[in-house]
């Protein structure tokens, strides 16, 4: 489920969406191709993975054995669609030959990158990312990577290797919703150097050596506790609803996280939550960012939100009593 913020963010920068159809290819290879294309195509272009029967195809990826069929030939000639044939035959490096045939492996394919640039991107409206125009700098690049990662994580059947400049963080499987964490990085933080790639066979074989955990919980905690990772800039007046309470894996910030969860599980406006809990907007945005990355919830409309903040000051005996009581509970429990 795409969150609107991701779509809006992309659209506001490019106004252009690339429609790519993949046909006749296994879902595993298809997912590999999607990851590579997402990495190659700049993030200010949104990608829609569409059906071959759809109207506006910008690029068609078709298995080479189906290329000569009547239906495909007709489609390509009539609509003059840009296409790439995909082969099963592994080569030592990925390459594209004259007849538009792409051979696996697909990762780090310079030839694919060049081909996409020359055959596809050069023909799209020139809307290079204007960081200065949006008044943002390096942090926005990280946000773009986060959007790219977020979209990849929503693919239903991929195995990824997540790493940063310290090395491997984890191997993850979006189908089984599990993460295998590098044992030396169990409660790690990460930063701008966070990156990902398709997991290799050898890495998947060695997961038993790592610490297995729930993928969504791990992602959430990684993004919350990594203070150097900047968050997605959700506007204050936006409303968000989470699907479940994230489980913090450290005691630090636990109270804050649970209070934020108690608000957003009902669907709430960021500014109202910020006021009730007396937190800076950046903290609330960080919470929502971590939820978006871990695919927990979505932006909602005001009518869908259930949380109501009453900003009339209450000076009743009960409120005073409750505050005192909670304070003592926390202090006693060390919360």
């Amino acid at each position, binding site marked *: 489920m795409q969150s609107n913020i991701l779509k809006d963010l992309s659209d506001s920068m490019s106004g252009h969406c690339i429609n790519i159809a993949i046909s006749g290819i296994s879902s595993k290879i298809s997912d590999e191709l999607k990851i590579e294309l997402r990495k190659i195509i700049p993030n200010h272009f949104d990608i829609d993975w569409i059906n071959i029967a759809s109207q506006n195809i910008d690029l068609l990826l078709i298995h080479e054995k189906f290329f000569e069929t009547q239906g495909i030939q007709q489609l390509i000639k009539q609509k003059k669609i840009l296409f790439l044939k995909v082969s099963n035959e592994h080569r030592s490096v990925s390459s594209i030959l004259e007849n538009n045939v792409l051979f696996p492996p697909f990762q780090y394919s310079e030839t694919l990158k060049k081909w996409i640039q020359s055959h596809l991107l050069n023909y799209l409206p020139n809307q290079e990312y204007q960081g200065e125009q949006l008044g943002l700098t390096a942090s926005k690049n990280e946000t773009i990577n986060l959007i790219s990662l977020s979209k990849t994580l929503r693919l239903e059947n991929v195995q990824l290797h997540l790493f940063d400049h310290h090395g491997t963080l984890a191997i993850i499987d979006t189908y*089984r*919703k599990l993460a295998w964490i590098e044992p030396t990085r169990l409660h790690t933080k990460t930063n701008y150097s966070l990156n990902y790639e398709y997991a290799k066979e050898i890495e998947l074989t060695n997961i038993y050596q790592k610490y297995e955990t*729930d993928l*969504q919980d791990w992602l959430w905690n990684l993004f919350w506790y990594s203070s150097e990772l900047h968050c997605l800039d959700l506007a204050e007046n936006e409303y968000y609803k989470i*699907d*479940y*309470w994230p*489980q*913090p894996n450290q*005691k630090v910030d*636990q*109270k804050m996280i*649970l*209070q934020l*969860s*108690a*608000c957003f*599980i*009902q669907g709430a406006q960021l500014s109202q939550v910020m006021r*009730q809990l007396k937190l800076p907007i950046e903290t609330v945005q960080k919470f929502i960012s971590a939820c978006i990355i871990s695919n927990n919830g979505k932006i909602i409309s005001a009518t869908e939100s259930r*949380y*109501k*903040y*009453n900003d009339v000051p*209450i000076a*009743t005996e*009960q*409120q005073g*009593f*409750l505050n005192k*009581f*909670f304070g*003592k*509970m*926390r*202090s*006693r*429990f*060390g*919360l």
Partner: protein
Amino acid sequence: MILQQYKIVFVGSMGAGKTEAIKSLSEIPVLATEAFNTDSKAHNKIQTTVGIDYGEITLDDGAKIGLYGTPGQARFDFIWPLICKGALGVIILIDHNNEAPLEELESYLNTFKSYNKNISIGITHIDENTNHSTTIYREWIIKNKYAYPLFLIDAREKEHILLMIESLVANLEVNFKAMS
């Protein structure tokens, strides 16, 4: 809402760890009402709670919070409404190792939500049964659009029980303030 009874109630399936959870927190030796378990089909353990376990924590000003543990089996259901009355909240513990943990959870939730609105759910023994995935609980929460906090925990770990109590407190604070 005036809080007069400082109590937190632990309910849930037999063997889920209710008595253990209270023992991990209580600063007094837990008053346990256990008897010899003759129903080995339901659970293999030797002892089972048949009355109300009682543990306690004292706040700085001398106010006490009672931690009440209840028997999980349906034949003791007469105890449940009595003990939940006026509680700060209810913690439901479910043993992931049971045959049908999700059905059990549903059953306890349907029963206890009529006794107390403030509920937090803990799934225990998650390492013992790798045949059932633990993702079933989150999927169930999402499918039913429930707002209850649900965590995977070890009932013997004080930190995990505190996480659950903290979620009850957070819910109360946010909703009480919002209501007021």
